[in-house]
């Protein structure tokens, strides 16, 4: 199937989104809430493109809009830029010190809207979180469901129930690794990982001695897979052995 992106013909596959098609064809579209492994959140809205099909022109979120034969896509024009400029300014008003948003603003040459009030931010999460929802989706996909969005509207945040350490959290860190703005604090010291106000004992790789997973994570995966695979090797060392399947199935794609 063929569509036109920014005036050029591009070969696309049935069922893929405009974003996927554009990126495969080397065309850049910015995103925050998109991950190949966790698509379809559609919350960040900076991937808007213009689509012309069946005589209708409209702006759509490229990360969720499927390609159709013969459609024309424009990834950069006056309206798209104006919208993106406002959006990135809204993000920087929310997380004024975040370097990822700063980098995006620089990359797309976004003029500063100085009039906007900016957030002060009380916690690290509030300082950097843009509420894209990737962490929650990652936690859902893991099946742990330790975090979710809480409250609504301007008060919305990501957290554990009652802001207490969650019984379900296994300290896998998938949430932190998918976060596009490094908002989730995860520290590792002396074989102990701390995340979401909970500490976890880290397990060393039998081969190389590197800390690679929490004890709870290993127990969780074992229980999920339901067999007695050798769980004592880190990712690298695993490749040598034959204990790799579970991790790839469940988690490898999340480890950006």
């Amino acid at each position, binding site marked *: 199937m063929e569509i036109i992106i920014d005036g050029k013909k591009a070969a696309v596959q049935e069922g893929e989104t405009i974003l996927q098609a554009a990126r495969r064809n080397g065309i850049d579209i910015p995103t925050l809430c998109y991950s190949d492994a966790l698509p379809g959140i559609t919350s960040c809205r900076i991937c808007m493109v213009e689509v012309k099909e069946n005589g209708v022109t409209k702006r759509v979120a490229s990360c969720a809009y499927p390609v159709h034969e013969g459609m024309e896509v424009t990834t950069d024009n006056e309206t798209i830029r104006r919208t993106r400029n406002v959006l990135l300014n809204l993000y920087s008003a929310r997380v004024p010190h975040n370097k990822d948003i700063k980098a995006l603003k620089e990359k797309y040459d976004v003029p500063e809207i100085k009039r906007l009030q900016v957030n002060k931010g009380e916690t690290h999460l509030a300082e950097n979180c843009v509420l894209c929802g990737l962490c929650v989706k990652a936690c859902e996909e893991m099946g742990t469901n330790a975090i979710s969005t*809480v409250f609504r509207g301007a008060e919305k945040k990501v957290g*554990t129930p009652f802001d207490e350490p969650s019984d379900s959290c296994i300290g896998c860190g998938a949430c932190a690794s998918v976060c596009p703005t490094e908002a989730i604090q995860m520290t590792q010291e002396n074989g102990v990982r701390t995340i979401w106000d909970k500490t976890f004992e880290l397990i060393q790789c039998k081969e190389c001695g590197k800390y690679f997973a929490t004890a709870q994570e290993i127990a969780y995966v074992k229980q999920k897979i339901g067999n007695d695979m050798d769980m004592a090797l880190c990712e690298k060392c695993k490749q040598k052995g034959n204990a790799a399947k579970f991790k790839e199935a469940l988690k490898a794609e999340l480890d950006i």
Partner: protein
Amino acid sequence: MDLSQVKQETLAIASSYKPERRFILAILQDVQRKYNYLPKESLVIVAEYVGVELTKVYSVATFYKALSLKPKGENIIKVCDGTACHVKGSMNLIQEVKDILGIEPGETSEDGKFSLETVGCVGACGLAPVVVINDEYHGNLTPASLREIINRYRGGENHGK
């Protein structure tokens, strides 16, 4: 409050629904009605009952305006701030309640007698401006008439229960 009693009562409420995720909101509404808020223990029980993680129940509990994690007052004063009431002076009514009770919208008075809420539209625009106290409607209000009504409730009259 007796914890085991809360748990039992919550379970009793939940049991009138099938243990399915779709009933989370309905069960929480009933729990809210019983206690005027959602006790933490109730959320745990509801999650267990319908078979989902606590996060799912907690996010629902914090999303909907009808639900509250904090105890509300004995009498709930809802000042309608729908458009019709707004253009007919609901702001003055909100100010009056603030002055009388010393609480902001969303707060509960120290004696636990009143909560103040502003609500979107209670659908009684013909009587604007409207205040609903517990489930009773009071229409065509002025700050003075509202003060009288609140004083009635203060005097121990309690229509809602």
